[in-house]
């Protein structure tokens, strides 16, 4: 249901932008990130970056009812959509919000770039197929998300950002659609069996 809604939003697009952006927080919540995306500061730079559609999977969080999204109506499942117009002339962006999706991999495929929390599951799901920007959730008890984001960011496989840096790092993310980041190595299925076989006495 959520994906058909996102298509409807896509077809309404009137602007010259052509990119689709996905924002995902997995099964948890990360209101600092999802509410930042829905703030006027971020929404206003999206059209100029060529982004025409943003899908925001916001999980368990509450959406802040700020004025930028006052024409957003959210249904019982927590889904909704609106068009944001930048009156400075940069154009419009369609925004589609929803709590969860059954088919994240399809949404990833339909996106040109992805913004995600720094959970290892989400990173692994995206890092081999789309340009990825991750924002570690600093409110987590044991903040090893930042370790992983920084390590992968330092090696150039993704862009690591904080919520505060999002506006500048977004431009880097869009740039990497045309000029891809360093490709993350494919899964080497020979590695793990060697360790297991040695542990069990197979030579």
């Amino acid at each position: 249901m959520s994906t058909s809604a996102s298509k409807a939003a896509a077809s309404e697009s009137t602007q010259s932008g052509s990119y689709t952006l996905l924002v995902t927080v997995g099964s948890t919540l990360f209101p600092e990130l999802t509410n930042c995306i829905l703030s006027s500061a971020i929404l206003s730079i999206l059209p100029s970056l060529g982004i025409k559609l943003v899908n925001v999977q916001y999980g368990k969080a509450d959406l802040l009812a700020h004025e930028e999204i006052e024409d957003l109506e959210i249904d019982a499942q927590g889904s909704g959509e609106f068009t944001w117009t930048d009156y400075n002339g940069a154009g419009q962006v369609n925004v589609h919000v929803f709590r969860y999706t059954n088919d994240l991999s399809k949404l990833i495929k339909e996106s040109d770039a992805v913004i995600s929390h720094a959970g290892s599951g989400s990173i692994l799901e995206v890092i081999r197929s789309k340009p990825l920007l991750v924002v570690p959730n600093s409110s987590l008890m044991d903040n090893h998300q930042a370790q992983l984001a920084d390590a992968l960011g330092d090696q150039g496989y993704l862009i690591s950002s904080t919520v505060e840096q999002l506006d500048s790092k977004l431009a880097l993310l869009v740039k990497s659609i045309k000029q891809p980041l360093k490709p993350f190595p494919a899964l080497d299925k020979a590695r793990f069996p060697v360790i297991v076989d040695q542990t069990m006495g197979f030579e």
Partner: protein
Amino acid sequence: MQVLSCLSSTNHVIAGPMVVPLVVLVLLLALLLLVSRLVWICPAVRSQKPTKRQKDETCSLGVFLGSGGHTGEMKILLSSLDLERYKPRRYVVCHGDQLSLVAIANVEGTQPETQTSDYTILSLPRARRVGQPLLSTAMSTFKTILVALWHTFLLPLLQRPEEPWVDLLLVNGPGTCVVLVLVTYIRRFLGLSASRIIYVESFARVNSLSLSGKLLRPWVDTFVVQWPDAAGKGAAGLSGRVRHRGWLV
């Protein structure tokens, strides 16, 4: 005669206060025996070589599937294993963990919640929910231990005393797996043929270990990290038992 009775009466007088130190002494001795037995079987002290296996032999495999990211990683680890060699498989999940049931079906190429001759599923009560208070954690952990004890130690002991419940136990992190390793250790403690244990630390652990990882590291036969510094800076953290072969996911 008088001397003798005198002796026995002194004996009697002394015996009363001696009981307490005696019990303490026996307890201390038992503790000493327990600790020295644990040190003796601890892989960190003296790693045990596996018995040689032929190419065409099969190994039964126990897999613990805990939650979210851990299950996702375990799914990828299993996808690289030869399932014709590592069978039958016994999956251990926590009650109500639908995601892990779907992951099992994915790995096995079957529908969720079915079982075949190649694999079975054992469901444990969860030892700790996120944010659960300490006392109730202790209670629920105790319940988990009892259920695990019955299904992975006592029942197999009654049915086939000569073999452990699985030849290999594969775990990768979430809390309840510590309970499973603990119960699996009973056979090793008793000197019976026991499961070998592999722990794979998460891809998310770059320069420190998770709590489960820290607890289990001395006790497993092979401890795998996916980042070179996860178990300690540089080569210091690595040894014959602690392995790093790059990313496994």
